[in-house]
């Protein structure tokens, strides 16, 4: 009986599962890279434990004829790489799932009666090629054959990927790949396995990259030249990226002793003319909230990247959630304006992080880029970034002798000078201050500064919001709302539903809430919101701002992002 891996669908969902430290990420990188080069769309996402070795982690790689960028429950092809692998994903297996693996590794964890299992002896192949460590490459070879990729392409990619290694190692990798390739090609040729995917040569021009890279590139594009942070999953990748590029791009990057130092450093850096950011997660940001209030008080621009993960406290350190919106929205003592972006894919991550620097600088307010582990650690094939819009709008003025840092202006924004650029003195104070930046206890001045800093500037940033994107027909009866990284899963669920009367509204700016929100919501007969948290924080915000209470709330907070199927099922049940 032939097994079809695609079954008329445009994509195959491959899941690699094994222990931390086994090299699943390498398999992912290799396979994703080869597939993209071959002309497939690729999306890969990982779920992993908070440990360095052992346990059970998995990576889903969707290889597709059409663009795909979402996490699905469905597993078409499972490559279990450790004994505990099958158990780890057991509840996502179906009768259609094909398991390809190695009995030496799997032992009795695989059950021929229950599982749809085909053996390829990865370990043996690897040992023949030069050692156990080549088992990963063998898996790549096997998968490449099933995906109808030419062996020569595999070889070429391997040579590039391992170019820093010895030629012996490269050869061994090729040997392992080739041997496994032959075995699985035989399966395909025998007709036991079927797979239908279309290749598109233009995809070669696309990029294959993850959310963390997109945020980092956006930062560099936005003129970021200073980053101070303290490592914290899942945000560390951005710090690492910038550190790696520090020399090339002339960035000052410093690992601080704690998040408090990181925040106060970045604020100090802005004061001296840098464009600075911090990258952290909810728990680290909690320590920065006093600093946030400082930034607001001295009207310093500030860019804060929060990669969300499940809390409270340490929570599930390597997993995903969307539960820190309220934190970003209300953090800090006292009252002040702020801006919150929440990109749903790498394109938006790049462009919003870039924009964050310009908006922060223009209005002298803190701007948040709110992502999460899912977005940061997933990799997507995407069209080339559009750099034509990248403008590094600087809003610094050269000071003259009479310069006043907090001069009262019509719109509330005081021209921002920095020390050492011009003849003036630049004085900023965390106490209430007058136009010169000197401490005051005058109630009149206090009132004026509150008007300027809080009320006028709130007005300004309300006028420069990014509209939510409507996906689907304008003529909807049901409106599904999502924000940030749930975007692609929600969108694919809508496609599965395939209904004209259901549309999706994707918010990438959460605060100030774009004014279009109310109109979109009012038009709907039924509203449904999808949030990766327990208390529907964005629905609450919408209620507060528009008075509209979203009827149905779909929540998930177990540490995983939404599966496409979950959203599909939940919405389908409601409409």
């Amino acid at each position, binding site marked *: 009986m032939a097994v079809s891996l695609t079954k008329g669908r445009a994509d195959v969902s491959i899941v690699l599962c094994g222990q931390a430290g086994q090299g699943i990420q390498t398999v992912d990188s290799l396979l994703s890279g080869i597939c993209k080069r071959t002309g497939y769309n690729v999306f890969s996402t990982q779920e992993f434990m908070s440990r360095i070795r052992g346990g059970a982690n998995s990576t889903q790689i969707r290889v597709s004829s059409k663009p795909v960028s979402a996490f699905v429950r469905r597993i078409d092809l499972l490559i279990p790489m450790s004994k505990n692998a099958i158990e780890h994903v057991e509840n996502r297996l179906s009768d259609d799932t094909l398991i390809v693996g190695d009995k030496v590794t799997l032992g009795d964890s695989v059950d021929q009666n229950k599982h749809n299992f085909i053996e390829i002896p990865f370990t043996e192949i690897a040992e023949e090629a030069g050692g156990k460590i080549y088992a990963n490459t063998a898996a790549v070879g096997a998968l490449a054959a099933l995906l109808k990729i030419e062996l020569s392409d595999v070889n070429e990619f391997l040579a590039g990927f391992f170019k820093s290694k010895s030629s012996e190692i490269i050869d061994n990798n090729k040997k392992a790949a080739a041997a496994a390739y032959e075995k699985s090609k035989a399966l395909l040729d025998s007709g036991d396995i079927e797979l239908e995917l279309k290749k598109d040569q233009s995809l070669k021009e696309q990029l294959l990259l993850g959310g963390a890279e997109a945020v980092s590139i956006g930062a560099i594009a936005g003129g970021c*030249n*200073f980053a101070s942070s303290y490592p914290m999953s899942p945000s560390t990748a951005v710090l690492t990226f910038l550190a790696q590029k*520090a020399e090339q*791009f002339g960035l000052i990057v410093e690992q601080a002793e704690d998040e408090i130092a990181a925040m106060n450093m970045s*604020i100090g850096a802005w004061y001296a003319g*840098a464009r600075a950011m911090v990258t952290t997660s909810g728990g680290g940001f909690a320590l920065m909230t006093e600093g946030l209030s400082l930034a607001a008080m*001295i009207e310093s621009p500030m860019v804060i990247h929060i990669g969300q993960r499940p809390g409270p406290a340490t929570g599930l350190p390597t997993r995903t959630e969307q539960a820190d919106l309220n934190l970003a929205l209300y953090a800090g003592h006292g009252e002040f304006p702020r801006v919150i972006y929440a990109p749903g894919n790498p394109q938006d991550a790049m462009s919003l992080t870039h924009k964050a620097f310009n908006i922060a600088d223009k209005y002298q307010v803190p701007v948040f880029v709110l992502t999460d582990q899912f977005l940061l650690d997933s990799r997507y094939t995407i069209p080339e970034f559009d750099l034509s819009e990248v403008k590094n709008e600087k809003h610094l003025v050269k000071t003259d002798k009479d310069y006043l840092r907090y001069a009262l202006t019509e719109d509330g924004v005081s021209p921002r000078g920095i020390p*050492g*650029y011009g003849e003036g003195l630049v004085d900023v104070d965390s106490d209430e201050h007058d136009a010169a930046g000197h401490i005051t206890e005058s109630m009149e001045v206090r009132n004026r500064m509150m008007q300027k800093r809080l009320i006028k500037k709130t007005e300004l940033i309300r006028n420069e919001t990014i509209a939510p994107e409507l996906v689907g027909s304008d003529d909807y009866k049901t409106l599904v709302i999502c924000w940030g990284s749930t975007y692609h899963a929600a969108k694919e669920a809508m496609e599965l539903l395939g209904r004209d009367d259901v549309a999706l509204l994707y918010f990438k700016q959460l605060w100030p809430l774009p004014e279009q929100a109310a109109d979109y919501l009012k038009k709907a007969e039924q509203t449904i919101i999808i949030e990766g948290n327990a208390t529907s924080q964005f629905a609450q915000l919408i209620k507060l701002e528009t008075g509209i209470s979203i009827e149905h709330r779909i929540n998930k907070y177990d540490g995983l992002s939404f599966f496409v199927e979950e959203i599909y099922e939940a919405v389908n049940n409601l409409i």
Partner: protein
Amino acid sequence: MDIKELELGDIDIAWCPGCGNFGILKILKQTLSEIEMPLSELVMVSGIGQAAKIPQYLRCNYFNGLHGRALSAATAIKFANRSLTVIAESGDGDMYGEGGNHFIHTIRRNPDITNIVHNNMVYGLTKGQASPTSKLQFKTPVQVGGVVLDPFNPLAVAIALNATFVARAFSGHIEQTKEIFKQAIRHKGYALVDVFQPCVTFNKLNTYKWFKDNTYYLEDDYDPTDRQAAFKRACEEGKYPLGVFYTDDSRRPWEDMADGYKHDDRPLYQREPDMTQLKQLIASYRD
């Protein structure tokens, strides 16, 4: 530079009459005037407390940030623009209490900044609780039976941390302290000057007289490059030595080793992202 350029004229200074802070302000102004510090290149950074108000009382650029966080901001200001002279100045509570972690790690980082600490052995602004440097048995409204925490010895700790310049001064000694300030500012790297400062309102134990009676200067032939000796002298109690305890010229400041300054000397505010390189970087994700 004429000291008048530093004066703000007839301002209302929020310190108590007789406070040791006045002495430090005076010494600071004289120092800056005598070393001909160009005003636009000087940045004063402080936290919150009585001492931390000092930048308010002279003409200068200043960043008066959060309680305890002066060193973090000061470090970054120096990192962002190496042509600025940065002085981080605050109280003992600010620097050694709330800011203790930054004290440790700033010393490890060794940025080229000067750190002046007004050590009045008390929390002045919040009305007289113990500070980390308060002496044992000092009684306060919170330390009712007297302080029992071992007093923080900033010099010994700084030396243990390999700080590159460590000194102690007294606000009552204009000339000597001025010389120490000058050396500290000239020092290339992090320089700590802990300044004994009487708080006439809340510290009735460590008064002007107490400081006068219980301090003396390190000998003229004292060698400040001997770390072990410096530690020993820093541990002296009863009579506290004043002067420069320790200097080390072998360590380079962080900012002179930073990747971001390897190929570009300009301060950060003059930089633009290199779009050609950025495009290449993005293109690298095609493979």
